[in-house]
């Protein structure tokens, strides 16, 4: 690892503009994600949180701006550089996006098979380790995604995102649709994995509990820009009307008490 890479932010987003037709979703947005932190990303529904995530990953084209991940500019990088970056990140999609015709085991092994040259035995053992890490029983391995509950799908999807031991994971609303206990477990899990694997986590969330318990830093999206970024205390101290409502509303008080 380069010495410079440690100090530089792992994701550096500069003046990103994304437009669908005539609607401007992101408008000159800047964001840094530091190495080893869990960044919680919040904002009103439809503000473009998922769009930003998808733009960073490269699924949504941008009109203007610059994105660097691991110090590589994704626009000017060649295929092998880009593959190198993709090998080092994992993505958890909102609906899980598991391959429906593959079993859980095959889903988790899919990226390993593509990127690594390891024996089937090691892959099976690592799959079991990953399943244990995300808190699933070994029996789940031979099931198909359609036979899993919503929470299990999220866990399997996380296990797949972690299959290659990435340095960076994107989580798009990981706790939505989970019961509060399940969601709490999931936050705990993300925290544990971040400590054990030294992950950097970029988490889009609406869950106040997640923000309080799991996140090191919070960034707030509004009007196509980052309107605030900082610790949870900074957010509570902010005078921005949406932030005041978000962090001092009825639900926020319930979470804090």
């Amino acid at each position, binding site marked *: *690892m380069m010495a410079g890479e440690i100090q530089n932010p792992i994701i550096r987003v500069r003046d990103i503009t994304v437009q669908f037709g005539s609607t401007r979703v992101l408008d000159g947005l800047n964001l840094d994600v530091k190495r080893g932190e869990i960044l919680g990303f919040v904002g009103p529904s439809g503000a473009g949180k998922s769009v930003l995530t998808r733009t960073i990953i490269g699924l949504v084209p941008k009109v203007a701006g610059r994105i660097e991940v691991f110090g590589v500019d994704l626009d000017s990088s060649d295929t092998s550089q880009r593959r190198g970056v993709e090998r080092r990140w994992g993505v958890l999609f909102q609906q899980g996006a598991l391959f429906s*015709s593959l079993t859980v085991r095959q889903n988790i092994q899919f990226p390993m098979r593509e990127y*690594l040259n390891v024996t089937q035995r090691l892959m099976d053992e*690592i799959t079991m380790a990953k399943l244990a890490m995300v808190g699933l029983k070994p029996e789940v391995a031979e099931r198909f995604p359609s036979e899993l509950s919503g929470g299990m799908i999220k866990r399997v999807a996380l296990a797949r995102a972690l299959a290659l031991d990435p340095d960076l994971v994107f989580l798009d609303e990981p706790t939505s649709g989970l019961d509060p206990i399940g969601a709490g477990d999931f936050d705990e899990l993300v925290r544990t994995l971040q400590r054990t*694997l030294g992950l950097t986590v970029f988490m889009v969330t609406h869950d106040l509990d997640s923000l309080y318990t799991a996140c090191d830093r919070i960034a707030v999206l509004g009007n196509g820009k980052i309107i605030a970024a900082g610790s949870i205390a900074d957010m509570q101290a902010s005078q921005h009307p949406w932030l005041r409502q978000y962090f001092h509303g009825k639900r926020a008080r319930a979470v804090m008490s």
Partner: protein
Amino acid sequence: MSGDPKLERIAKGNALALCATGAWTASFAPSLERIVADAEKLAGSRQNIFIDVSEVSKLDTFGAWLIERLRRSLTQGSVEAQIAGLSANYSSLVDEVRRVKATPVIDSSTVTISGMLEQIGRAVAGVAGTVTSLVDMLGAVLAAGGRVLIHPRSFRLTSTVHHLEQVCWRAVPIIVLITFLIGCIISQQGIFHFRRFGADIFVVDMLGVLVLREIGVLLVAIMVAGRSGSAYTAELGSMKMREEIDALRTMGFDPIEVLVLPRMLALVLALPILAFLGAMAALYGGGLVAWLYGGVDPEAFLLRLRDAISIDHFIVGIVKAPVMAAVIGIVACVEGLAVQGSAESLGQHTTSSVVKGIFFVIVMDGVFAIFFASIGM
């Protein structure tokens, strides 16, 4: 920079230290597996074996697991191998993999003769299941149709018109084009071979009877099965996958009445129209080729056509169309509603919708041929 991983053996009297160095990560997994397999042979060679990982520059789940695997195989009887020199960063990761049970579940789906026989048996039994489900769907559609007749306000006109546009209006260009070309080909081949006997003009008889009785409707039905049958299956299948059909049911709607009936009705109305247009296009194409290639001028063609065919030929053809449409629609809807949760299942059912649809259309055509022959039409 992190170097290639190594495992050095340092003997100290009765103890053996295995010093791991370099990067124990996924990218070095093949060589790591070899190193670990070599070191596993040392099991039981010394009283006291420990694995020193203090010099490891980088560790991930793969490396941690391989160290754990080595530790487990070096542990024999009362002698437990230890991991030493674990830094705080990595200790939680090693603890995490230590909790993993070693026996991975591996499915053993080997091909056996009894297994193959079982599959054949299941496939044969499945045929009966297919016929039952088709009859079942036919009954359900008729029952839904009956309910709609009693309560005409529950009929979904908008939906029917929408599907009619999809399967009829939008299908016209391709159907007309293909039947036109088929008409041309029949006519050209007929003239080419009949000319040897000086029987050019009889190509009109052949074209007229063939197109109106058989080819017109059969070809159009096959195309509709491929074009609209597959679309129905895919639509209903993806709705099934996303629980939309369950949602309809819980709201008190009958999916047959809401989804299947309008589609069936649209198809039953569309196929005769398309078969008629197809037959006309084929006759036009045949006539054009007969004129340009065979020298039969249009007036002679029409005169001969009037003598060669009667209204019976047309009726025999067009009567088959709605029945074939019903068969295609029922097969497509049964397959669509049978889709399970995976994308693969959707693909399989769409394929089998088209294959079964075409198969049943041809079987129906044969049944009709026997029927019309026996009543003398």
